[in-house]
């Protein structure tokens, strides 16, 4: 068999992993499963697309950065899209989640996130139709790199971007005061307040971080696959499976979980057929829950 599935898997895994970081942060710090996280991805992607179009309308056609399929407009739009997605998450928290959280029942917040997910997705379909769209229709030539593996310049760039972002988030979590505050809050909320941590501030940073990374993951899907209102929703199961496989609360775990699921999916597609792709996350999720519910890097609740 060809080793192509490794590259395909790493790419899918990057998207899953970046998304799973947000899932795992929301779960460990805000203590609920945010089913609207996938829709943050989709909204971020459409926002980025809108900014790309606006730049195109203002500056005319901009040549891509050779050998990539996209130029500076997409990079600028991505940053705007990340900010937009962060604002969306903060807004949703303010009008919906924070009020329900104050009542103290996690399941209500989870259901609310399900409702928000449907509403957000429907709004996208309403505004942009459910027809797929693309950042660029240019066809990239995949370069052979040995072992029967072929990879496009876009794919290399996005793998590097993922590695950079993951490293950045890891350093943020372990080397900065805000990162330590996030860890503290996830371990003991009452003690976090006692040591002087402003919970509301940390919660805001959690949303900003998770949403911005969701936007990047969505744009990656947009560049490598296509843009659809359901693109984020379809990522929900793999993202949750990755977060749980990695161990809830663990950022390295979420990323590793994403890569494992991505590679397993790509392997299954190559070995037994594309119709099995969706089953892979489900099987891995079930296996983890039965065999090691705390995941790879998880820690048992005290």
């Amino acid at each position, binding site marked *: 068999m060809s080793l192509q599935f490794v590259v395909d898997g790493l790419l899918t895994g990057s998207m899953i992993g970046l998304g799973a970081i947000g899932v795992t942060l929301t779960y460990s710090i805000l203590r609920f499963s945010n089913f609207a996280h996938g829709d943050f991805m989709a909204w971020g992607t459409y926002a980025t697309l809108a900014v790309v179009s606006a730049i195109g309308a203002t500056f005319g056609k901009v040549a891509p950065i050779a050998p990539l399929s996209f130029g500076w407009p997409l990079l600028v739009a991505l940053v705007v899209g990340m900010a937009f997605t962060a604002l969306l998450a903060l807004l949703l928290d303010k009008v919906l989640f924070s009020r329900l959280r104050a009542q103290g029942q996690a399941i209500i917040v989870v259901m609310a996130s399900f409702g928000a997910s449907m509403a957000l997705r429907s709004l996208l379909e309403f505004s942009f139709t459910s027809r797929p769209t693309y950042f660029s229709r240019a066809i990239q030539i995949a370069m052979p790199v040995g072992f029967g593996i072929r990879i496009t310049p876009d794919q290399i760039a996005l793998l590097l971007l993922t590695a950079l972002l993951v490293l950045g988030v890891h350093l943020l979590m372990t080397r900065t*005061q805000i990162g*330590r*505050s996030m*860890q*503290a809050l996830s*371990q*003991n909320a*009452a*003690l*976090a*307040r*006692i*040591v*002087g*941590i*402003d*919970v509301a501030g940390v919660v805001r940073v959690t949303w900003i971080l998770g949403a911005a990374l969701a936007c990047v993951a969505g744009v990656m899907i947009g560049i490598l696959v296509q843009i659809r209102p359901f693109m984020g929703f379809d990522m929900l199961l793999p993202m949750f499976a990755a977060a749980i496989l990695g161990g809830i609360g663990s950022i390295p775990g979420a990323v590793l979980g994403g890569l494992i699921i991505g590679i397993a999916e790509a392997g299954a597609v190559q070995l037994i057929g594309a119709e099995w792709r969706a089953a892979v996350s489900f099987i891995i999720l079930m296996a983890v829950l039965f065999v090691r519910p705390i995941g790879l890097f998880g*820690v048992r609740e*005290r």
Partner: protein
Amino acid sequence: MSETVLDVRDLEAGYEPGVPIVRGASITVRKSEIVVVLGPNGAGKSSFIKAIAGLVPITRGTVLLDGKDITAAPAHTMVRLGLAFVPQTENIFPLMSVEDNLRVACGILERREAPARIEEMYAMFPDLARQRRAAAGNLSGGQRQMLAVARALIVHPKLLVLDEPSAGLSPKFVSMVFEMLAGIRKAGVTILLVEQNAKAALATGDRAYVLVEGKDSHEGVASELWNDPVVAELYLGQRPLSAEKTGHAEKGGAA
């Protein structure tokens, strides 16, 4: 009489509306004192100091710290106001390293001051220095308590408030904790603590209050309180102090 650090007047507080647990308690703590709050189990001692620290809703009364009204200030602002609280249990972040436990508490310090302050804590608690990279959850009971106290002291509090710092520790560690508190007071920090271990607490403390059913029912000089028959009946009588009463204080009390 030296200046008042903490003045709590007629405090009423509770977890649910209409169900006060603390029912009109008043205490005063003066500069450089160690003040002990005693009382039977369930008297509301923990609730009382948690209310002072902003963790339990206050429905009546006032809390003044250095003359400043801090009644019901949000819990996370208390360290900035000068009050550091050490809860009885779960008072460290178990998955973080010892050093990160200290670092995360340095939020109100100048960025440049924090590393030096952490080293000062290590000098004070050499056990912690040896384990700075270890996960705090792997520390022994006594070391956890030290870490919790170091974490509280690191921000230069005016008042250190502790909930049963000796609970669950072996006798060796109990005496270590009280020696530590005496040392902290010598360094100029005022201390308010809740204790079940009345003998050791009264030996170390200057004054004590007895809290019964959410009210301060009795106040006195610590060394005298131990022999007070009213207190004995109110508090000590309700609890067979088998292990604690075998020491000298009991013999002294009987003499």
